[in-house]
């Protein structure tokens, strides 16, 4: 019989027992609510089988916030352990698991779903479309992401978590050095969600290229749409490298191959190389969309059009290409030689140029504008100093000889948190506050939001500035404890205090959401355009009807909605009774979630190396695909009469 693991529960740590109990309690509570209020049918019909991009977007937001909580708790656990020298809060192995899951979750299951939430919620509305190009595939994307995330998250209660960092470098991750199912969880979780990401990239590339409203030429597209186009290009060409790297490592681990082993002709450094061919573009996948968000937020709240539209477009496209040419700056210390390091160092610094152009453009957009300090604007303004510092430290790291000092120190940690939190997370939150009324029909409360922002912003600097210094003082990353007398103690304590401030900030954001939901009638958005903003989505009611546009608008220039409002002709985007025709919409389907459940089973099979389970799972995957390909599913039409009724009820006719 082939060897395999038993899915044994992880034992021996009070923290894990605590987590077990809370997971059990939450699950029971959810099941209770669903049974008690007989919500199963509703859940299935409205959410689990939906192909509506708006709902899928909301699912991504919820998932991202939940994962931000999980990843945040991981972060606080690490900071608690490091607050003082010689702490025994986490043992070394547990610490390894916590930093590995923290990084993996934050990049793949927080930053990515936040981006996909933006893609889904905004893009079709912004380009005047009724859904994405491939709605069914879009549902598959979400569920593959969801079950990938679930797979990684169950690892800490059964089987054990991955413990070799979010990069999972070989040869440490080869079976020989890292037995047990932990790494398999990592490999399969990323593989499943990677399928979803790839599909999302393709979907939005096609959506943006082919489904724009008539008259919306490329150079009339809002900048968020451009940013998503650029990010989709990166997704499509970067993800295959990750897929290959993970697949080969999995083959090494479960089938005894030697792609990345130390002996038998394997080359462990090739894993590092492949990983970063994906890894560096990945940081731009989670960054370009938020550049898009800022390019919407700054003009909206400065009352001006964006400064330098064409240079914004050019820099987005330049970044999307150049981001593929820099990957080796993540392993200068591998010693590939002066030629290689010099090229990759200089190329990395060069990407600062298009990024700098954008920062200047945002500032010129605000210059002499009529600025309104709303919640989205607050996060956007907070982003600028953050990102400038992050870029500057990035350029420091890109100087290869310098990097021999900074590499894998807390200086590096501070750098990438500066850009990832200061860029991606600030941008996601700006986007969340900005489009929240569009999703739910009410704005989020300012007062609580402001407290959240300041706790978070102050906490951020208090957490990460000491880490730059610690790095320069020689503290390396991924150490679980340190002796007293290194001069590190006070700065570490300060950093931990900052981390808890940020934690408090997160709680305030959640409180803001709950508070605003409870007071949604006072915060209701009746106009559909609560911010007096510029692009097409604000011409629709909040939330928009299922079909988005009763009549697809015709676009004649940039910022169409803003220009119409300015000339007092906003009414031309309202439907008239004779213009309304029957609307063709895609059907809901249960297959995407079922398909993904089978993939989850395949994942579990590989994790525990249970071949029968893999076969069962794959059979299910193939069966659902086969059923889909023989299915006659051409969508349905909403009759014109029904559309007219709906528009009347929305007060638009």
């Amino acid at each position, binding site marked *: 019989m082939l060897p395999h693991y038993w899915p044994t529960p992880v034992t021996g740590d009070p923290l894990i027992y605590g987590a077990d109990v809370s997971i059990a309690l939450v699950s029971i509570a959810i099941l209770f609510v669903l049974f008690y209020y007989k919500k199963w049918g509703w859940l299935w019909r409205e959410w689990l089988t939906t192909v509506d991009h708006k709902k899928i977007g909301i699912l991504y937001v919820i998932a991202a916030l939940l994962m931000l909580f999980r990843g945040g708790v991981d972060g606080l656990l690490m900071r608690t352990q490091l607050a003082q020298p010689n702490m025994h809060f986490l043992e070394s192995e547990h610490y390894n698991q916590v930093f590995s899951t923290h990084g993996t979750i934050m990049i793949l299951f927080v930053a990515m779903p936040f981006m996909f939430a933006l893609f889904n919620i905004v893009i079709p509305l912004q380009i005047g479309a009724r859904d994405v190009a491939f709605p069914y595939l879009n549902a598959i994307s979400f569920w593959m992401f969801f079950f990938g995330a679930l797979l990684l998250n169950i690892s800490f209660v059964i089987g054990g978590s991955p413990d070799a960092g979010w990069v999972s470098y070989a040869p440490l991750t080869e079976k020989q050095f890292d037995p047990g199912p932990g790494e398999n969880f990592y490999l399969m979780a990323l593989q499943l969600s990677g399928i979803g990401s790839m599909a999302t990239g393709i979907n939005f590339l096609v959506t943006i290229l*082919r489904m724009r409203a008539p008259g919306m030429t490329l150079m009339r597209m809002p900048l968020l749409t451009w940013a998503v186009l650029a990010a989709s*290009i990166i997704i499509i060409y970067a993800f295959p490298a990750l897929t290959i790297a993970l697949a080969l490592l999995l083959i090494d681990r479960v089938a005894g191959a030697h792609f990345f082993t130390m002996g038998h002709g394997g080359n462990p450094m090739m894993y590092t190389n492949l990983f970063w061919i994906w890894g560096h573009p990945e940081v731009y996948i989670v960054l370009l969309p938020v550049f898009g968000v800022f390019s919407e937020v700054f003009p909206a709240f400065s009352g001006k059009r964006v400064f330098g539209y064409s240079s914004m477009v050019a820099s987005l496209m330049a970044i999307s290409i150049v981001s593929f040419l820099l*990957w080796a700056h993540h392993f200068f210390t591998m010693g590939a030689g002066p030629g*290689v390091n010099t090229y990759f160092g200089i190329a990395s610094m060069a990407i600062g140029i298009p990024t700098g152009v954008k920062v200047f453009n945002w500032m010129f957009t605000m210059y002499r504008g009529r600025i309104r300090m709303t919640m989205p604007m607050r996060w956007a303004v907070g982003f600028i100093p953050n990102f400038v510092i992050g870029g500057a430290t990035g350029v420091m790291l890109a100087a290869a000889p310098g990097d021999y000092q900074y590499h894998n120190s807390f200086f590096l940690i501070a750098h990438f948190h500066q850009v990832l939190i200061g860029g991606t997370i600030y941008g996601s939150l700006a986007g969340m506050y900005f489009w929240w009324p569009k999703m739910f029909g009410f704005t989020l409360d300012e007062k609580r939001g402001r407290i959240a922002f300041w706790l978070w912003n102050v906490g951020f600097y208090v957490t990460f500035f000491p880490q730059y210094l610690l790095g320069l003082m020689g503290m390396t990353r991924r150490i679980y404890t340190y002796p007293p007398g290194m001069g590190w103690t006070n700065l570490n304590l300060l950093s931990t205090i900052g981390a808890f401030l940020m934690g408090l900030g997160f709680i305030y954001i959640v409180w803001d959401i709950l508070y605003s939901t409870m007071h949604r009638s006072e915060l209701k958005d009746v106009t559909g355009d609560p911010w007096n903003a510029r692009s097409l989505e604000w011409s629709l009611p909040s939330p928009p009807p299922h079909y988005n546009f009763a009549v697809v608008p015709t676009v004649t220039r940039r910022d169409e909605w803003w220009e119409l409002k300015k000339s007092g002709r906003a009414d031309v985007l309202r439907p008239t009774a004779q213009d309304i025709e029957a609307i*063709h919409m*895609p059907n809901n389907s249960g297959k995407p979630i079922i398909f993904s459940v089978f993939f989850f089973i395949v994942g579990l099979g590989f994790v525990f190396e249970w071949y029968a389970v893999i076969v069962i799972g794959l059979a299910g995957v193939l069966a659902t695909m086969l059923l889909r390909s023989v299915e006659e*599913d051409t969508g349905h039409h909403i009759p014109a009469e029904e559309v007219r009724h709906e528009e009347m009820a929305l007060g638009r006719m």
Partner: protein
Amino acid sequence: MSSHMMEGGHGDGFTPHGRSFPWLHVVGYLLSLVLTIIAFLAVLNHWLSGRTLISIIMLLAVMQIGIQLFFFMHFTEGHGPRYHIMALGFALFFTIIFVGGSVWIMSFGGSQAY
């Protein structure tokens, strides 16, 4: 412009084949199996070695790409702007960058045994 494209579509879809038997797919499938088997046997039976072997395998890989594009992805069909040519151009460009870059990096300027 149509409201959205249904996958596997009628109406807005790209495939003009209707419901006839998918011969193209079957042929493509067989061809890709054959190419895989050739590559596999070449390694297993030590037909060739060193650079020739690697070159042959790379050639077979390129042929596989061609089969994917023409037999499964309907590369020659479609209407509207030729975005797919652009996409393929990008793919070619990035492939050269990745392969060339990796060889350059992993050969350590020629001073390493790999």
